[in-house]
Each structure stands twice: as C-alpha cells, then as structure tokens.
C-alpha cells in the first residue's frame, strides 16, 4: 500500500498495490476481489528470483482518494498525531526519527 516504505525496510520481495490503508485486500465482503489480490500477491513468490523483487499489482481502487479518506473520518487520530498537534515542535523528531526515550518523557511529566 505504501510500497516505497515497505521496500525501504528491506523485505525480500514485495507486491505493491494502490489500495488505501486499513483495506489491503479490498472492501469487506468482496470475496472475489480479495481472492484476486491474494492470488496475485502469492504468484509473486515463484517469480521472485532475487532479493528486492518488486511487482506492482494492476488493481485499481474503486473510489477517489478523497472518498477513501472520508470513509474513515470518524476515527480518532492516532496518539502521535494528537501529540504533535499539541506540541508541533516535536514534529521535527518524528520527521528525523529522533525518538524521545520513555524515561525522558516520564521525567518531564
């Protein structure tokens, strides 16, 4: 779903798909669509002869990105998003990967 992030961590082989997060196989109860995605994913296995093999699956999400995002509008933001909204200077840590350690956080409280 986010192939360049998945690829960047060094998975042996990767099937990329242009589907939104939370629905990697497709929509609920679309058994036929889910089966096609799983089949195409597994068929990468015998085709992959070397590390970092990357195959883009041809499936197209049936809604616009805006509509896909709107479907999850009622979900509360993740704790890290709430934190950097309240303390925007911490966004720099998130971008750069400088993770504050828990004991430091507790000491500040």
């Amino acid at each position, binding site marked *: 779903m986010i192939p360049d992030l998945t690829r960047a961590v060094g998975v042996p082989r990767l099937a990329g798909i242009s589907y939104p997060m939370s629905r990697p196989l497709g*929509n609920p109860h679309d*058994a036929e669509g889910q089966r096609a995605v799983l089949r195409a994913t597994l068929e990468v296995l015998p085709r992959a002869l070397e590390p970092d093999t990357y195959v*883009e699956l041809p499936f197209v999400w049936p809604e616009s990105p805006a509509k896909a995002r709107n479907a999850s509008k009622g979900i509360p933001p993740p704790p890290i998003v709430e934190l950097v909204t309240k303390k925007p200077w911490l966004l720099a840590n998130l971008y750069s990967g400088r993770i504050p350690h828990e004991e430091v956080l507790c000491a500040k409280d």
Partner: protein
Amino acid sequence: MSIDSYRFLDFATRQVMKAWAARQQAGVIPFTRLAKRLSECTVALVSTAAIARNDDCPFDQERERRNPWWGDPSFRVIPLGTSESDVRLYHLHIDPRFGQADLDVVLPMRRLTELAQEGVVCRPAARHYSIMGYILEPDVLVGQTAPAIAERMRADGVDAAALVPA
C-alpha cells in the same frame, strides 16, 4: 515506481512516511528462493492490523496513549478458522472497522483456504499471526517477535509466508 498510495493519506502523514522511507537503510536483504512449486506450499499469513482473539491478551493501546512514540512489538497467534466475531483489532493508526466487519480484509485466511481448494497453494497453515504495524523502534520486533513467529512457522511446516500490511 508508478503506484502512489500516498494519495490516500492526509498531507502530514504522507510527509512523515516519505521522510521515514527516505531515511531507512535496508542493509542485506534476507532472501530464499521458493524451493517448491507454489501449488505444493503450505502458506501462512502475518497481518500488521493488531488482531487479537477475544480469549487472548489485547495489544497494549494504553501504553501507546501514554507514550505515543511507543508501539506494542508483540504478536498474537490467529488459528485458521478464526473469524471476525472471535477477534478485535487493536491498532490506533488504521480504521479497524473494515477488518472488524470482514477479517479477510486484513488477514485473508478464508481466501487462502479457497486458493488451496483451487490448487493455487497446497494448504493454509494451521496458525497465522498478527503484529501491530506502528513500531518506530523495531529492536524487539526484529530481535524477538519475528524469530518467535518464524519458529512456530517452522514447527507447522510452513513453506512461505505473506506479510499483509494494514
């Protein structure tokens, strides 16, 4: 790369994920060619949707709420035949309602069973797995969780595993 799944994300999340992808260094990528035909393989699935059975321990959301830089690096076993009514999704970064409505959206065990019936794979493994996908510091995940899952897969005669990000 023509797939742009960032388009489904809001602007801030997109920027953070791009920064993390750019900074990652894959190092040596472990790789073993498939030793059998796919139709002879026992296949296991690993979902990152933080799925836990109702009779198992939930993923720790409270600790993440207290420290949003932390994510639960443990795993849960999801036996074949488990359905959406037997589980909950404990992931604070995805919309759990889709997988809760139909578990195959995130852990396609029924679809895998159907592919075995069609002869695409030999059989689904008896046990499948879930981890939680928001782990900024992956030491425990890589050093303890992944080996523990691999050990169980070996015991079950698994030939291939598909990791399903959520």
